[in-house]
């Protein structure tokens, strides 16, 4: 492979020092603390920042801007090179999952011949990066003033080796067991996206989805509050006299 002249060159290959350290088990606090803020970037049409127990996601929305054909929702989700402990990760094809979860929430028919671009970046991954990106993206869309049916709220859950269900899992727990990611439109009580991986059997999957939906319902008011705050900041203070 020819060297890429567009980047500063480093060594051909390198290893993370964590490969040489014995693993330590960490347990997530339940529930994990959440921080949400909308409308913080100056350039984008809409933006949101979400943090949940160490996982940090930033999302920007551009548009609607002119494009031929029906309205398209263009989504990209990336992980920062320093977002994980251990080996440097390369971005995965997560944009499609994000797009599928959001499409049901946005009133795309209101924007003919237009394009909406959603860019999400996971700055630090401590588990649940994908569902948090879904929540951040719908918050950013709402902040941009895009017409929506409802906010799509993401939730995650993992199943440990003993069969116990763990909502909002840590990255270490996600790796070790089966996981469910779900995105819910809470006001309509509709599921707009669902990704299951690993081994699930019979009732435990149904139970997991129910728990996930409950988690989403709990997150919903937090997102609503941050939107109200962002809108209040945008409206100038009424002038007295």
């Amino acid at each position, binding site marked *: 492979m020819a060297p890429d002249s567009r980047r500063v060159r*480093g*060594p051909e290959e390198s290893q*993370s*020092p964590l490969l040489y*350290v014995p693993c330590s088990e960490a347990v997530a606090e339940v529930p994990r603390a959440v921080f949400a803020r909308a409308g913080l970037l*100056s*350039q984008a049409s809409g933006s949101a920042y979400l943090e949940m127990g160490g996982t940090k996601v*930033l999302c920007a929305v551009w548009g609607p801007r002119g494009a031929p054909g029906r309205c398209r929702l263009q989504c990209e989700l990336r992980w920062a090179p320093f977002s994980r402990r251990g080996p440097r990760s390369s971005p995965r094809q997560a944009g499609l999952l994000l797009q599928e979860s959001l499409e049901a929430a946005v009133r795309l028919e209101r924007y003919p011949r237009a394009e909406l671009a959603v860019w999400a970046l996971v700055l630090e*991954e401590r588990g649940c990066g994908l569902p948090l990106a879904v929540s951040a993206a719908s918050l950013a869309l709402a902040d941009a003033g895009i017409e929506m049916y409802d906010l799509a709220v993401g939730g995650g859950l993992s199943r440990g080796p003993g069969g116990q269900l763990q909502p909002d899992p840590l990255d270490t727990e996600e790796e070790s067991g089966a996981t469910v990611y779900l995105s819910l439109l809470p006001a309509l009580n509709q599921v707009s996206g669902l990704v299951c991986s690993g081994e699930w059997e019979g009732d435990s999957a149904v139970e997991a989805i129910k728990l996930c939906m409950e988690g989403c319902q709990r997150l919903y008011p937090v997102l609503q509050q941050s939107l109200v705050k962002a809108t209040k900041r945008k409206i100038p203070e009424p002038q007295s006299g």
Partner: protein
Amino acid sequence: MAAGFKTVEPLEYYRKFLKESCRPDGRELTQFRTTTINIGSITTADGSALAKLGNCTVICGIKAEFAAPLADTPSKGYIVPNVELTPLCSSRFRPGPPGEEAQMASQFIADVIDNSQMILKEDLCISSGKLVWVLYCDFICLDYDGNLLDTCVCALVAALRNVRLPAVKINEDTGLAEVNLKTTSPLKILKHPIATSFAVFDDTFLLVDPTGEEESLATGLLTIVMDEDERLCSIRKPGGSALSPEKLQECISRAITRHKEVQSLVNEVLESVKSEK
């Protein structure tokens, strides 16, 4: 009325302000925007910092990894800076491989690290000829509003001072590395280069810390990098208006005062991070 004038005749709009020696955002010509630095916010990185100049925001995360040194420099480690300008920060940028501006910024940072000798690459050696540290310094622009280079250099210096490397021993029998995460040590940083950028307006006015708007209207740009001993590490002047030696000297003395401002800000933030622990 003023907003309409600004959209139709942006340059005239600026000239009206410059005549009075001030700028549309209320700053004087030699005044920086509010600088904010947050150190150690990304715990998955070995060192991290977020720097903000007004709206312009850059986050720098440093990851340290093991690599084999090059054969001709067996005791030298690597420092690999990479600046990413994603569509997140401005609609000007497209996804995919780094564009021209990102390449320029990455190379500029690499040159600043080399020229200033802030870190000796020999200090990154674990075992000569076998194992060295490679520091991946990734800069991601979160909000693009002019003066990218100053913000990046600020973030770099702050993030490097936050780096803690674990102790490494080479096992004599197996030849493999043994990492001890409990004992960590900071990097040996010899110099603290700080960048100061200027925009030249109409070949005469010098504006320090230009915003995105000012950069696009300016007739020339200039970036000066200084270290604490008032030595020049780098000057970048990509074409544009010519500058007289007196003007350049003026810029250099402004860069010296700017260095003191940033240095004390970084120290202050580091102190507050320490006392929190």
